């Protein structure tokens, strides 16, 4: 009993993680550098940090000590920690680097970026200003200082900084975006619109700018233009052309982080960016299926369907039972006109997840086309039971019953399904048509068929629906009405250039014109 209790308690204790010893400060003015618990990190990241630590240790061990070499080792680690958002550790690296080789622009600039992300108000401004003095030509420093001034409500300073940035980089959208915000603060909406449009002209994909344009037009009182832009607004913002900060991502070797970044890009509908991240994730995580499934999905959305199939197949190499990969290969190969390739994958999905109605529907479609109607019916029937509001499943199930000559059963199923789903147009239409023209005449009900067909025609006066209404009238014996409606059906079919329908409908029309009995055969 005691042993069991101890075991239970032990289960709640954190497992000791392998630790890297801190790198001590070899001079009084430097700080010792600790390292994260490796056991919590992805193996690739463990390896990366361990290697960088070794480089630092080796650089420090060199005699005579080379300040620049040690500084470079700290900078590599600093950028890496920065990219992994271990700001506390990155800060020590940058500080030590700055002491070892003072006045290096990149060190100061990245330290400023760290302070910015952490909301260290005064420190970031001080560091950016220092960076500006060291390298006055780097335009992004001015953009950052402009942003800081904006956040502090100092619009004149912000304006000056954004203009300085543009003097150095005339196509910097972030500077125009900043100037637009300045103008918004000053309630000069015309100027704001000009700047936002300019920003948009440089980075068309930055659809978030449309929100600002929407607000500017709203403030000008033009609600229609505001709504137009708000409809176009999305999640992609304006990113400064800041090669130093933007390059930090290259220090990320974690597949998990690339997956997270890929998902964020996907959420912002940046599919190209997402695909790039997922590909990097797949490369970093050789046994991970999710990165490959995500990559496949993204490639499919980019229209690269064969590459998508390859990514899904790669996922199946790792996990043959992955439902998403099987399903997606099924869908893509089916779309490519290869039901033979799709079928085994869809069958696998149904086997793995019998409640997957979508796979059953697709599989049933393939089986139906192969003439394996009984099997197709089984999947449609199951799909309809799994998703009682799936109109396609309800229609196909009834249709196969009709095709199999099971008219009574079909009529019963249609009646029950329609009772529960009276707002389903296509289902109502099929039911109306079957009531009007069921091969078993005793099952027909012209009056009810007229009622139902009239509903679908009222909702959408398409040729086929009108044809069914005419059939229903014919079934009630009202041949004149059938002629009138069928004439409209023919006109509607002609209007959309459906000659196949026109010939069939004209034949029916001729029978209606002959007068009673004009019901369908």
């Amino acid at each position, binding site marked *: 009993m005691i042993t069991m209790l101890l075991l*239970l*308690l032990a289960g*709640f204790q*954190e497992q000791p993680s392998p630790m890297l010893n801190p790198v001590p400060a070899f001079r009084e003015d430097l700080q010792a550098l600790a390292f*994260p618990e490796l056991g*919590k*990190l*992805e193996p*690739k*990241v463990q390896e990366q940090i361990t290697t960088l630590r070794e480089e630092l240790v080796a650089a420090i061990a060199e005699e005579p000590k080379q300040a620049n070499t040690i500084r470079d080792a700290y900078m590599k680690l600093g950028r890496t920690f920065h*990219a*992994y*958002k*271990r*700001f*506390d*550790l990155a800060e020590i690296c940058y500080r030590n680097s700055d002491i070892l080789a003072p006045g290096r622009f990149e060190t100061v600039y990245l330290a400023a970026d760290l302070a910015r*992300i*952490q*909301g*260290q*108000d005064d420190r970031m401004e001080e560091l950016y200003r220092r960076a500006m003095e060291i390298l006055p030509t780097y335009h992004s420093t001015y953009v950052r200082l402009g942003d*800081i001034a*904006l*956040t*502090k*409500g100092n619009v004149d300073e912000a304006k000056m900084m954004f203009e300085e940035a543009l003097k150095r980089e005339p196509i910097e959208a972030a500077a125009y*975006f900043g100037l637009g*915000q300045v103008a*918004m*603060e000053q309630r000069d909406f015309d100027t704001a619109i000009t700047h936002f449009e300019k920003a948009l002209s440089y980075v068309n994909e930055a659809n*978030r*700018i*449309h*929100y*600002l344009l*929407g*607000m500017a037009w*709203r*403030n000008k009182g033009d*609600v229609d233009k*505001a*709504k137009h832009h*708000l409809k176009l*607004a999305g*999640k992609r*913002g304006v990113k400064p052309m800041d090669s130093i900060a933007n390059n930090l991502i290259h220090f990320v070797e*974690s*597949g*998990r*982080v690339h997956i*997270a970044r890929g*998902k*964020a890009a996907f*959420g912002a509908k940046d599919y190209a960016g997402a695909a790039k991240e997922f590909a990097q994730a797949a490369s970093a995580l050789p046994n991970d299926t999710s990165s490959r499934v995500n990559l496949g999905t993204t490639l499919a959305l980019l229209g690269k369907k064969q590459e998508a199939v390859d990514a899904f197949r790669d996922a199946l190499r790792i996990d043959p039972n992955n439902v998403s990969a099987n399903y997606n290969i099924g869908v893509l190969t089916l779309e490519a006109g290869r039901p033979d390739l799709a079928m085994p994958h869809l069958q696998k999905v149904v086997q793995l997840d019998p409640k997957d109605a979508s796979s059953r529907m697709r599989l049933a479609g393939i089986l139906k086309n192969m003439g394996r109607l009984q099997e197709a019916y089984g999947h449609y029937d199951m799909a309809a039971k799994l998703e009682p509001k799936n109109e396609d499943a309800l229609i196909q199930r009834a249709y196969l019953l009709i095709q199999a000559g099971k008219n009574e059963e079909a009529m019963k199923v249609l009646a029950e399904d329609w009772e529960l789903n009276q707002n389903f147009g296509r289902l109502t239409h099929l039911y109306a048509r079957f009531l009007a023209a069921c091969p078993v005449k005793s099952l027909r009900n012209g009056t009810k068929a007229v009622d139902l067909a009239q509903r679908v025609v009222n909702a959408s006066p398409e040729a086929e629906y009108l044809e069914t209404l005419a059939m229903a009238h014919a079934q009630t014996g009202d041949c004149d009405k059938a002629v009138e409606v069928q004439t409209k059906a023919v006109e509607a079919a002609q209007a959309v250039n459906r000659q196949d329908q026109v010939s069939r409908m004209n034949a029916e029309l001729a029978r209606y014109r002959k007068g009673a009995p004009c019901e369908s055969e």
Partner: protein
Amino acid sequence: MSYSRICTVLFLVSALFGSAAEAPLFTEVKPSSGFDFVHYNGMNGKYYLPEIMNPGGALFDYDGDGDLDLYLVQGGTLPAGGDASKTLVPYKGKGVPKDRLYRTDIDKSGKISFTDVTDKAGLNATGYGMGVTTGDVDNDGDLDLYVTNFGPNQLWLNNGDGTFSDTTAKAGVSDPGLSTSAAFIDLDRDGDLDLFMADYVLMNLDKYPNCYASDSSLDYCGPDAFPAAKDRFFLNNGDGTFKDATSLIRDAEAGAGLGVVTCDLDNDGWLDIYVANDGDPNHLWRNKGDGTFEEIGLLAGVALNGVGAAEAGMGVTAGDFDGDGDEDLFMTHLDEETNTLYTNQGDNFFDDGTNSAGLAMVSMKYTGFGTGWIDLDNDGWLDLVALNGAVRVQAEKKGIFPLQQANQIFMNLAGKGFAEANERGGSAFTDEEVSRGAAIGDVDSDGDADLLIINCNGPARLLLNNGSMNNWLGLRLVTGKRDALGAQATVHTASGRKLYRRARTDGSYCSARDPRLLFGLAAEKKITGIDVIWPDGKKERFPAVETGRYHTLTQGKGGKP
């Protein structure tokens, strides 16, 4: 030099040199007073999201004795039914974890004490609690409770004898999902309180995903790991039951809802609903006055921040911070984002006024939850509190639950902006904890606003306002037998100043505040009258009343405006 002259000089020096010479704003109630609530989140190392999202609490006078009692929402194990003594931080209370009700008593000397009356009151709220709201849903003159859970919610009807009954099933207001903030408000003007609640995401602990921090270590998921849930809306039938009216708020994308505040943002007399969504555009449901609502957040400028980004909306509060007669919105957000102040420009238009108000940079390193407009020094200008605590592991911090952050106070600079003044709040604002719910109210009815801070996986803190030299006026707005939630009062001071306040229990995060209104009058001693717009749109004028005390204004007892 006379003694009085010296005092005057000292006062001027103090006023000129600001906070350094200013007294602490609060005195914290000690556990020896009987208020000893400690939140239990049931964390078990699996990084389940609900364990970092709760709890809230309520300040409400459940026994009608004139002081505010405390309701604290408790967590539990995840999944339910686990052994609470064997989680990473074991539950140390008696029995199973459940919500607690503390009765407040103030003796003649002013000494305040608290008694845990949960069992006596028949409250057995053992769900995994998220939040609570209060209101008199059956119009019988006492306050009822609606508790939101990760799992079925509960409506506790106050029996009027110090006990409560669970009437959830009869009322038809349960919600099996992950509900967060809720609001009682009469949206259809039929005389009873309807119920709106924010739902967060659709989550199944059996199929819980792994999420990772930026350094690839395991971390808590954000809302983007789950599908957002639809908020819920119930209309009160007036007979103890509610009608599910969620279909009235369907024409918008679901958002991961966390904060809810009701207010008349367009001053058309109809109460609207504002929902803070986490990572999704916020929703502003404009009450069209015909029983329907339209979502207008995007065009109104309150769905996204000033640069068009959806932020991680957690808490939200509405109030007239700049004294221009309309309500502005303040929202708390994730770190690396700012908190956001939406200033009301009228006609359903808002501007993001965060930068110019000085509220942007100061919030960048914090993740905010509970918040509220609160006139801490009774100068008539609404100050702000923002309660913070991370939602992602702060790797540089030690401990088993490294989400601690400091809370913040922002003093209103006469409607022109805000200045951070955390040190004035004492240790509850300088020490780091994982704070979530904030409930504001005058617990001891002494004319200043007190603050209940509800921490996740830690003790709750009740901070009693030490008061100021400034004068005040307290109002309770009543319609029928109950608080007129949604009513707005305008106090006209003798100097011509107008102070607008709305009676509500909603806002903040997962918490319920005192519906009574406090008007800080600064040095003014007299008012000239009070205008009230009642929730049914009717307007009344009440004559001047004595300041420095509470008054009850009842609908129908005032004159023509």
